């Protein structure tokens, strides 16, 4: 049981001393992505082969021993570059291997661990410059980021609390418990300008202060780890890769508001996050960093990990609290706000994973340091999940104020086109903020992204999903897609959301199927506004955002669907009128047989043709032709 800051620092010194003298350290990424690609097998094989080479191989660092001749093989959480996984990094050399296979392990041992040489075949090759990157910092995906919240993710072993302590972990808790009053903490967070990373961007310090001033013998702190936004996995990576930063943030929040109990609510779809959080809580308890009389300061905080059961709406704060109470996860009207009456009717602070993980650094290094990056009204950094039609998918962290150009082209390495090639100008749009957000277009390439600039154009930071779409993406289909999602996930409690999303979906379907009339777009817009206004919770209120934003940014594309009955991106089947390319057609007659309205004719072994008047655009011929001689136009 730790009793003082000195004891905490002693662990750090001892740990660092014994790890600094290690011969080498091999880190195998054991985040969800790399495990899915076989990283655990690589881990086991590494341990086996290092031992076979006669080297002393350890899998856990013991602080008492002399480690000069040893190689430590350890797991880490997600390193962010999941698409290139499994990743293996070797320290202190900083060598970074991508797409490693079990068969590569022997060579890694012989060549890199024994002789200290990199293996060219396993290096990341920059798709634009062709450069082979030996070190992590040579890779553009990494060297243009500012990893702060994610700083330790991918470097430390999340299942060993000592490693976190060695990197100054839990010192912020000690400072908050011994040197600061609850009011000081709220003020420091307010001064830092930290805003909620869960989507709303509400000032965290203010939220804490509102809860702090409530008089109650019982208060709660909740960490919202229900991350359900499609295309988002920032919180998963933090929980998997650095669970102690979240716990530390929660203890500080508890002190700030006067709570003695807390819950981390994690989605069950994240088994690794659940497992590592549970291990982390247990280790923190064992060291006296959680539970009764934390570090001898007299402060108590009990922390529970709880799993959800798959309902997107449970990410909404009042629904989440109902879920912890064992009820259907339905949102409640506000007020009362959680600060007044939250979990079990008690004052409660609920924050997002990334918000809480940002807290220890603010307390330890000061609000001023935190404000040193980002923009005036959105200080600090933000993690984004970069997915879709982009060369480097993965998890990134950049200061607020970064641009889409920087993120998609420099860090993301460019847009992938339908034929698989990478292009430096194939971008059509980026959806930011998932099903509650909006889209950015080439027009917004150089706009500094922050909470305010985005809401100014009808989008939002949201939780941090950035879905990149190339030129072949149909924006009506995308709107339909997001609408389908929110309609499915609507809990059905209030009518505007339940019925409104259904009707909007039907209207979008009309457009895609070619049934829309001149009025459809107007009705859609009116309905969207009604749903925004009339819904109870954020799900309904924001559900129309993607449609409205896409309709504004891509008005011509919507009109083309409605008026000319054409899909410019050639994705809406019902709007394609097939044509035969005479040069490719061998006149086999297969399409003639499948056409249900006999619209195709021609002489055998000569090019056929389609009578547009008769064609009902069913697409059957397109699928039948073995020579790809029929194209949709």
């Amino acid at each position, binding site marked *: 049981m730790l009793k003082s800051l000195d004891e905490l620092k002693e662990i750090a010194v001892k740990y660092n001393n014994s790890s600094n003298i290690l011969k080498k350290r091999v880190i195998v990424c054991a985040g969800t992505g790399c495990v899915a690609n076989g990283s655990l097998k690589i881990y086991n094989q590494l341990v086996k082969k290092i031992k076979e080479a006669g080297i002393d191989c350890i899998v856990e660092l013991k602080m008492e021993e002399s480690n000069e001749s040893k190689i430590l093989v350890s797991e880490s959480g997600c390193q962010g570059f999941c698409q290139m996984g499994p990743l293996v990094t070797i320290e202190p050399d900083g060598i970074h291997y991508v797409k490693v296979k079990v068969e590569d392990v022997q060579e890694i041992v012989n060549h890199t661990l024994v002789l200290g040489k990199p293996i060219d075949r396993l290096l990341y090759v920059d798709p634009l410059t062709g450069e082979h990157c030996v070190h992590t910092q040579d890779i553009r995906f990494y060297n243009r980021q500012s990893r702060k919240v994610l700083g330790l993710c991918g470097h430390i072993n999340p299942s060993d609390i000592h490693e976190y302590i060695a990197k100054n972990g839990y010192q912020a808790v000690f400072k908050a418990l011994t040197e600061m009053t609850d009011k000081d903490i709220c003020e420091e967070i307010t001064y830092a300008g930290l805003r909620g990373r869960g989507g709303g961007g509400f000032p965290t310090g203010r939220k804490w202060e509102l809860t702090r001033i409530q008089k109650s013998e019982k208060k709660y702190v909740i960490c919202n780890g229900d991350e359900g936004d499609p295309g988002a996995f920032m919180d998963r990576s933090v929980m998997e890769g650095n669970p102690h930063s979240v716990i530390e943030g929660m203890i500080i929040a508890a002190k700030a508001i006067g709570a003695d109990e807390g819950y981390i609510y994690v989605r069950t779809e994240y*088994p690794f996050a659940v497992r590592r959080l549970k291990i982390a809580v247990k280790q923190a308890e064992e060291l006296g960093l959680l539970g009764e009389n934390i570090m001898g300061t007299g402060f108590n905080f009990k922390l529970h990990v709880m*799993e959800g059961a798959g309902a997107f709406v449970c990410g909404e704060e009042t629904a989440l609290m109902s879920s912890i*109470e*064992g009820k259907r*996860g339905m949102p409640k009207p506000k007020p009362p706000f959680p600060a007044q009456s939250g979990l079990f009717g008690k004052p409660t602070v609920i924050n997002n994973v990334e918000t809480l993980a940002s807290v220890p650094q603010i307390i330890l290094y000061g609000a001023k340091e935190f404000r040193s990056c980002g923009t005036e009204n959105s200080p600090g950094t933000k993690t984004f999940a970069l997915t879709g039609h982009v060369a480097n998918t993965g998890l990134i962290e950049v200061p607020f104020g970064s641009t889409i150009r920087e993120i998609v082209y420099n860090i993301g390495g460019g847009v992938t086109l339908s034929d698989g090639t990478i292009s430096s100008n194939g971008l059509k749009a980026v959806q930011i903020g998932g099903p509650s957000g909006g889209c950015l277009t080439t027009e917004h390439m150089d706009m500094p992204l922050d909470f305010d600039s985005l809401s100014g154009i009808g989008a939002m930071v949201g939780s941090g999903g950035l879905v990149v779409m190339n030129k072949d993406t149909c924006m009506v289909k995308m709107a339909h897609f997001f609408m389908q999602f929110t309609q499915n996930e609507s809990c059905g409690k209030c009518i505007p959301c339940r019925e409104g999303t259904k009707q909007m979906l039907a209207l979008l379907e009309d457009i895609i199927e070619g049934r829309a009339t001149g009025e459809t777009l107007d009705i859609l817009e009116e309905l969207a506004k009604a749903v925004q206004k009339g819904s109870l919770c954020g799900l309904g209120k924001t559900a129309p955002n993607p449609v409205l934003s896409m309709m504004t940014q891509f008005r011509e594309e919507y009109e083309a669907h409605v008026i000319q009955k054409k899909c410019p991106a050639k994705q809406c089947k019902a709007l394609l009128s097939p044509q035969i390319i005479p040069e490719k057609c061998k006149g086999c007659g297969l399409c003639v047989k499948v056409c249900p309205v006999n619209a195709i004719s021609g002489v055998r072994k000569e090019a056929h043709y389609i009578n547009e008047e008769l064609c009902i655009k069913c697409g059957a011929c397109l699928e039948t032709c073995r020579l790809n001689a029929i194209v949709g136009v």
Partner: protein
Amino acid sequence: MEIKFNDGELAKVENLKQKYPQQQAALMGVLWLAQNKFGWISKDIMKYVSELLDVPLSTVEGVVSFYTMYHKKQPGKYHVQVCTNVSCMLRGGQEIYDHISKKLNLNNNETSSDGQFSLEEVECMGACGGAPMIAINEDFYENLTVEKVDEILDSLK
């Protein structure tokens, strides 16, 4: 199978009850315990849980039906979950779903007659960095192509 927790499981139930100021709050945890043991949540299991926690059966039913991850039917030995949400869809998730559906001859939420496979189309599982992806029971498989899916499924048969 007899619907009854063993002593160890009952101790866990007790533990869950202690954790919260209200008994009903233990419900979701106990349902997970039941699903892990029995594979799914049948009507009889709901009755058992309702008695165990002294919560009305209708409340238990309401909760089970609200959350998608409680299985209302017995899933296959291999429960194949295919993500067709946005990041996967943009990288071919729908094609992967269609392929698996055809290959296993199953529609969404169906289980094969031999009890080996069940199929579910799921929302984003937060593994979009490796889209398109599927999960089989708790194991994730990412960066998939139709060929890779064949390899994975064939290795399970």
